[in-house]
């Protein structure tokens, strides 16, 4: 296993802001690292914390959760509900000792193509520096179905 470690990054993004923002990254031909796999949902409000846990379960070394900035939600308040859920989820994960450097929450609007590229690069670099999420992989090892 001399091969250089390439992290696996899973991103959950809302359709109206961050997904559209990532589209804009493409239209603007801004390059970023290809480790990320994006899952599209309508709104950050739809993002169940179980999705984040399952992403880790499936061996993601880093997770990005991103949606519309406060006030910009296509559904007026889905992101506000999501923000609260994240605040509680983060606290609980910290209590359980989960490495929260691996889960990044952010707001990326439909106009922020460059910001999406920057975010993905930053997260990829950071997670690459952290290395594989060994602790989690250890408990997964005990129970892959």
């Amino acid at each position: 296993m001399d091969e250089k470690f390439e992290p696996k990054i899973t991103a959950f993004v809302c359709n109206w802001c961050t997904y559209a923002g990532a589209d804009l990254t493409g239209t603007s031909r801004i390059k970023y690292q290809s480790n990320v796999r994006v899952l599209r949902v309508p709104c950050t409000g739809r993002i169940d914390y179980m999705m984040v846990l399952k992403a880790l379960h499936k061996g993601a070394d880093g997770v990005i959760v991103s949606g519309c900035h406060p006030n910009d939600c296509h559904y007026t308040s889905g992101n506000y509900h999501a923000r609260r859920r994240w605040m509680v989820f983060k606290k609980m994960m910290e209590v359980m000792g989960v490495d929260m450097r691996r889960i990044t929450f952010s707001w990326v609007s439909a106009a922020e193509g460059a910001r999406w590229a920057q975010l993905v690069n930053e997260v990829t670099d950071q997670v690459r520096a952290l290395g594989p999420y060994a602790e989690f992989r250890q408990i997964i090892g005990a129970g892959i179905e």
Partner: protein
Amino acid sequence: MSRIGVFTCHCGENIGATVDCVKVAEMCKDIPGVVHSVEYKYMCSDPGQRQMQEAIKEHQLDGVVVAACSPRMHEPTFRRAAGDAGINPYMCEMANLREHCSWVHEKGDATTQKAADLIRVLVEKVKHNEPLHPIKVPVTRTAMVIGGGVGGIQVALDIANGGHKVVLVEKSPSIGGHMSQLSETFPTLDCSQCILTPRMVEAAQHPNITLMTYSEVEKVDGFIGNFKVTVRKKARKLDEKLCTGCGLCIQKCPNKKISDEFNEGLGTRTAIYVPFPQAVPNKPVIDLQNCTYYKTGKCKVCEKMCPTNAIRFDQEDELVTLDIGAIVLATGFKLMKTDAFPEYGYGKHKDIIDGMQFERLASASGPTSGVMKRPSDGKEPETVVFIACSGSRDRAKGVPYCSKICCMYTAKHAMLYKHKVHSGKAYVFYMDIRAAGKDYDEFVRRAIEEDEVKYIRGRVSKIYEEDGKLIVMGADTLMGGEPVVIKADMVVLATAVQSNDRSEELAQTLHVSYDSYGFFAEAHPKLRPVETNTAGIFLAGACQAPRDIPETVAQASGAAAKVVGLFSNDELTREPIVAVVNRQAAPVYSTCVGCFLCQGACPYQAIEQEEIKARSGEVIMTLARINPGLCQGCGTCVATCRTKAIDLQGFSNEQIYAELMTL
């Protein structure tokens, strides 16, 4: 076992240059459930689409993944094509190889691998897709326009002329709005009432328009095409059918010293009154706060005088519930009052007035019959200072935005003043002159050049009164910040345009969004300027942002076109991306436990209570039910539900779980 087809698009060089599409198509053949995988130069082209349709038939595909550009671009295209080929359109998904892969990564194996991964995720999703059917909702072809100013009147007339019924609701006793108060309008200086009153009469007489003046919207239920609106018809204390509008009651009303709202407090009216002579309808109302009878229990002079016995002191407010298909908000604006300016004396100087008060002073139908007299002593003002941006673009006043109309009306005011007082001196303090619009800048130049209005670029820091004069202390920033002191007889503040009183309350009643200043928010600032985020509710005029008359009227016609477009269908079709609460056989009925924790999470009040009843009629349990007409499909309730009793069609738990499991 699923039979899924994968169609990989080169998008010319756009995908093909960095992603090895041929290899991707090959790789996809190995995904379980994929029975057909091809690549093509341009999938969205006519031959491309045809190729997909033929493959659907030939290989009896039950699901399709098109690996091409963003679904935000061509999802409707390919879903339509798939539908035409005989499968349910919602069995088609798109993998975004272009915006999310080929355009943002370098050419190489990693990029090709990512492209294949993206497709694999969507293949797993499609395996769990369910055929969905667009939601159809009926449409009530009656529109409600809230606000009877020039914007509301225009909307009502346009919809009515389009052949649909309109209910025009106005909270004050007459339609006409602010425009009926104006003296003359920029940039043509034509008389405001002369152009507005014919429209008011037309609206009143139109067979498709029902006027509800002196009425306010109290409650709005339902959803696009199917609103139920409750309107409070405030008691005029008058039988409108009997009243002929003769005005005898007004002449005889003993209580004549009431500050007149229409004249912005510069004149007086009686307790039973019509706001202005051309009011529509020309039927009086009794002002309960000021009527002697309601204050002391004695008087009733109007009742005795009325030749048709139309006065009804015992009349009560009436609540009317109407079925409405679309709503247009045209509730207008208000001006900041002079008492919001401590630096200009908190409104305690009578001769510091706002723009609307000046309109009344300049109006031929105003309290001075259009003769320039200052409010304090009725003298003709020899020097008048106009201050633009009074409150606007001023963070300290909470108004960082530009009020848009003031530059123009200030030029108009200065001009009108000069036309009436030829020897008078008019000064305008301004920050910038924003006169963008047809013939607008020419108009301002005319004020400066022909009417010799002195424009001073600078702010006024203070106004105080000394020896019967108003001392205006300003600065001329074009002269190096030189202090300027002007002894004026009257000062006109072009105060900021603000959202109307109780606009936030109304927004909450209608569940439309509003900005931090109380202006209603459009669905998209550029592409959907007359729609709100709530389907079926539209906007016109200054309730959305400061606007002048031409813009308001243009937007009103735009909103009317949207409503007429909506009414051209028998039924509305909506994307079936909505949340659903599961139902199961008795005795479980549903995994919903009826805790209704989801209700607060719904931005659309779409979660209702459904009672499950036994044959005896006894309620066995109360479950959540989602109204598909109201649900917009955000899925916040889905993530909130503990028992996963709610699921979102198109983004279901099974679909997302399947996607995750491929990663």
